[in-house]
């Protein structure tokens, strides 16, 4: 049973894309974490995607074989091997894109927050190796002290579906107390085009470089 006071926090701001978390290999040699690139053509921003462990897991709702179960501590487990028929319904249904079907072994496998470790109070493997602590596993007080500019939220809006998760996402503190991340709106929301010019003054190589944003 995962201790109730220890929670998982994802801070995409701090992700440096070092791929250390994807080495987790804890599930029979397969990495259960996705390191996603966001607008790879224009940005180097990456975000680690672990299972968010929803309060009402859509993957388990759509599973026709009753293979995806959640333990009492709210951790949605990977598919049960004797039940999973590798139909891929969960892959289609998960709003976060977490589950993955492995055709060679005919099973869906997904992040289960390293249940063998977290059930005994240890950190998940990815949280132990993350050098910038973009993946943080600890108490809410710790994260509040470590990240004073951010606030954890676990409520997401995908169109008409609102999801409450067990894993928290760190979002900037905007003062409005907004605790809901509207993902669909954010996808339509394009960032303003920025012109970055770096005027280099050849006369003085030690002059400060001006960056106009």
């Amino acid at each position: 049973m995962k201790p109730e006071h220890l929670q998982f926090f994802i801070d995409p701001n701090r992700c440096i894309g070092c791929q250390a978390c994807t080495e987790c290999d804890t599930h029979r040699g397969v990495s259960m974490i996705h390191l996603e690139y966001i607008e790879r053509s224009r940005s180097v921003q990456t975000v680690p995607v672990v299972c968010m462990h929803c309060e009402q897991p859509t993957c388990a709702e759509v599973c026709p074989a009753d293979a995806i179960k959640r333990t009492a501590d709210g951790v949605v487990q990977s598919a049960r091997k004797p039940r999973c028929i590798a139909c891929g319904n969960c892959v289609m249904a998960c709003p976060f894109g977490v589950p993955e079907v492995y055709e060679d072994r005919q099973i869906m496998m997904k992040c289960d927050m390293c249940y063998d470790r977290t059930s005994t109070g240890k950190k998940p493997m990815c949280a132990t190796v993350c050098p910038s602590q973009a993946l943080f596993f600890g108490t809410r007080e710790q994260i509040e002290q470590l990240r004073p500019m951010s606030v954890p939220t676990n409520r997401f809006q995908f169109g008409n579906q609102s999801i409450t998760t067990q894993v928290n996402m760190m979002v900037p503190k905007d003062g409005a107390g907004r605790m809901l991340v509207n993902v669909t709106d954010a996808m339509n929301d394009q960032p303003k085009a920025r012109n970055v010019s770096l005027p280099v003054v050849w006369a003085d190589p030690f002059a400060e470089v001006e960056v106009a944003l």
Partner: protein
Amino acid sequence: MTDDPAQSNAPSAQVDERLNTPAREGLTGTTPADAYVPPRDPEQITRAPDGRPMDRQPQWRRDFPIDWPQDHYVARRDFAKFLCLTSLAFAAGQVWIGFQNIWRRHRGAPPVAKIGTLSALPVGGTLVFRYPGPHDDCILVRTAQDKLVAYSQKCTHLSCAVIPDPAKGVIRCPCHEGLFDLNTGRNIAGPPPRPLPRIDISIRGDEVFATGVERRTI
């Protein structure tokens, strides 16, 4: 919990006062587990996406809950129902076996049927006939000048058709290499658990009649 965004994200946001002590147990990770809101009742943790209570949900959602404790939960009434029905099935099975015994005893002997002529069967020759029903294949083997044996052709293991081998004095089942003795029909090797049922033979003049089936267990 409603989906009101103005509400803070309970229950994880409900922090116990004990965490704000100068020792700051929350920072060292040594917080007592009960400092937070305890986990909810295992019977109540599955909530449907439409938010309605569990007793107003369709039956399949109650039969296949998502949560593991709820899935493993067996109500006392369900367990008692299972015990009663299983005991009833066992008792009905005993009655059925008793009725079958009585019925078998009152069925009477199978009819006498002519199966062939002695002159058409040389020594070492075999003949396939059907007795007592039209689907009960049997074999008749003339092992000596004045000796005839007849057995059911169904292997007692998995009902394959057995093949008599009068030269070696055995009946062989090709499916799993089961062997029966040709003179007695006893299972002598392989998986067959019982001897072959023996067909009683009577010879009247030149004609051969089957007069009965003797099923044996050893």
